[in-house]
């Protein structure tokens, strides 16, 4: 039987296709969590009331902020779950090594995050339609906001970057726990411990971290920052996975 030389790129490609077809459950959870987000958003993320003689004006903001928040959470959990033994063994049912397994998972997660961020932003339309039809009020006016395609696109990109960054955190956390089960306990302790230890001044470290990310006014720098963090987290996860044994 002739021996076959294979390229990592080929196997990564096959693995991505395989994961895409096999892990359909992630889409179900995405739909559920985003619908849940829409439901919670119906309250309106912000509102303004002003009454004059004769009529009341109530302005409610319906945005996809909560949906995006939920999607970020979903990204974290999904990536975390993909590191569990059952999923890793699925990879190893066919040809792979750790490198192609992690690379394909990262690219797969990126694809998932892209879809999730598009549907998250699209959900704002759904939200407005639902609000318009079902919420009480006599005369309703629907304003779609100043959403030019450019703004919409950058919104989507920002969402994608955020969800992807959080997925990298979930993936790293999962990998660390797979490496040594002790970290199920240690990881939260270390995380919360460092929050107290490294707090500077009034702001605890996690607030500083999120300020660093979210309060960035330049879109380019925001992009670079999130990509850099994702890269760091994913690289660490890859390093760990390289030492993991499957199917002991």
């Amino acid at each position, binding site marked *: 039987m002739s021996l076959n*030389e294979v390229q990592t790129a080929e196997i990564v490609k096959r693995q991505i*296709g395989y994961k895409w077809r096999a892990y359909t459950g992630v889409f179900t959870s995405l739909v559920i969590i985003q619908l849940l987000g829409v439901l919670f958003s119906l309250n309106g993320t912000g509102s303004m009331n002003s009454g004059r003689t004769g009529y009341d004006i109530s302005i409610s903001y319906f945005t996809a902020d909560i949906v995006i928040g939920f999607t970020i959470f979903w990204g974290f959990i999904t990536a975390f779950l993909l590191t569990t033994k059952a999923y890793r063994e699925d990879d190893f049912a066919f040809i792979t090594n750790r490198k192609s397994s992690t690379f394909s998972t990262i690219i797969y997660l990126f694809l998932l995050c892209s879809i999730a961020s598009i549907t998250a932003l699209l959900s704002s339309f759904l939200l407005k339609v639902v609000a318009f039809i079902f919420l009480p009020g006599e005369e309703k006016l629907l304003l779609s906001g100043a959403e030019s395609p450019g703004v919409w696109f950058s919104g989507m990109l920002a969402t994608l970057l955020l969800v992807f960054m959080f997925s990298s955190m979930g993936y790293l956390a999962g990998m660390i726990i797979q490496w040594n089960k002790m970290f199920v306990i240690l990881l939260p302790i270390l995380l919360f411990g460092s929050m107290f230890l490294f707090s500077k001044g009034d702001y605890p470290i996690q607030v500083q971290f999120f300020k660093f990310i979210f309060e960035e006014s330049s879109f380019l720098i925001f992009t670079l920052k999130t990509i850099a963090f994702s890269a760091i987290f994913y690289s660490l996860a890859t390093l760990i996975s390289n030492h993991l*044994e499957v199917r002991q």
Partner: protein
Amino acid sequence: MKAIKCEALTKTYYRKKALNDLTFSVEENKIVGLVGRNGAGKTTLMKILSGFSKAKTGVVEVYGRRPFNNLFVSANTIYIDDQMNFPTTLMLNEILEEGRRFYHNWDHDLALRLFEYFGFHRKQHHNELSKGKESTFNMIVGLASRSPLTIFDEPTTGMDAAVRKDFYRALLKDYLAHPRTILLSTHHLEEMEDVLEEVVLLHEGSLHLHMSMDDLKEYSVGLSGKISEMEPFLQGRDVLYKQNRAVDDCYAVIRNDLTGGEYRQMQQAGIITSPVSASDLCVYMTSETSGKGSVDDVFERSADR
């Protein structure tokens, strides 16, 4: 090039040695049986060869490369056991499709024909199969992959006798058409001894014996007769196993290096010689060092109380 090469291979789990200084090698394109008692280290060895787990010390090579975390070895090896994990969302025919996408030598036609023959339905899911059906399906994946190194770890778990027979036949036929290295562990050695070319016997993580099946079958001979008649013949010989039977009868297995003259002497002394099957021999050879005696002793001790 050798298909498998192990040198002083050691693997420990929680300080217990699963493999202990194991050295052996397997030439390409042979069907080799890996036998030994439960816990002898068969599965550990197979998982190291497939690149799933890592040896602690020693050298292990599959087609000249170290298997752990190696894409080349993964592409040219398949490991089939009864705990195969396929995504629960995929239907059986989708799993076969994935196999086709991954393995370069995959024979989809063969996979589908075996699939039909063993009565599977395309829409079934892997986790809904019975034990025997699951093993049968995994076996199909293993055969269809045509991997240069195909590893079967207890492939017949749960299969009924008819399916096992079909499996041995399918294995041999496909091997004849497409020779490749097949390493196979089994507790049914007697059923498939004719199909195997070589046998590797592991005992407590070490290599106990590695020889061709033809040689193994002639390796020993069983003697039975009266203890008083047997004793002189057993003197100074390599006695592999000895058991006292009713009253003054005794059964012993010795190395088969008797001369024609000795045979005649034995026959005259009323000692009956009989062949020892390969599977019985493997059991005999790995039982004597345990020091715990036979299961009979367990009952004798409890009866004394």
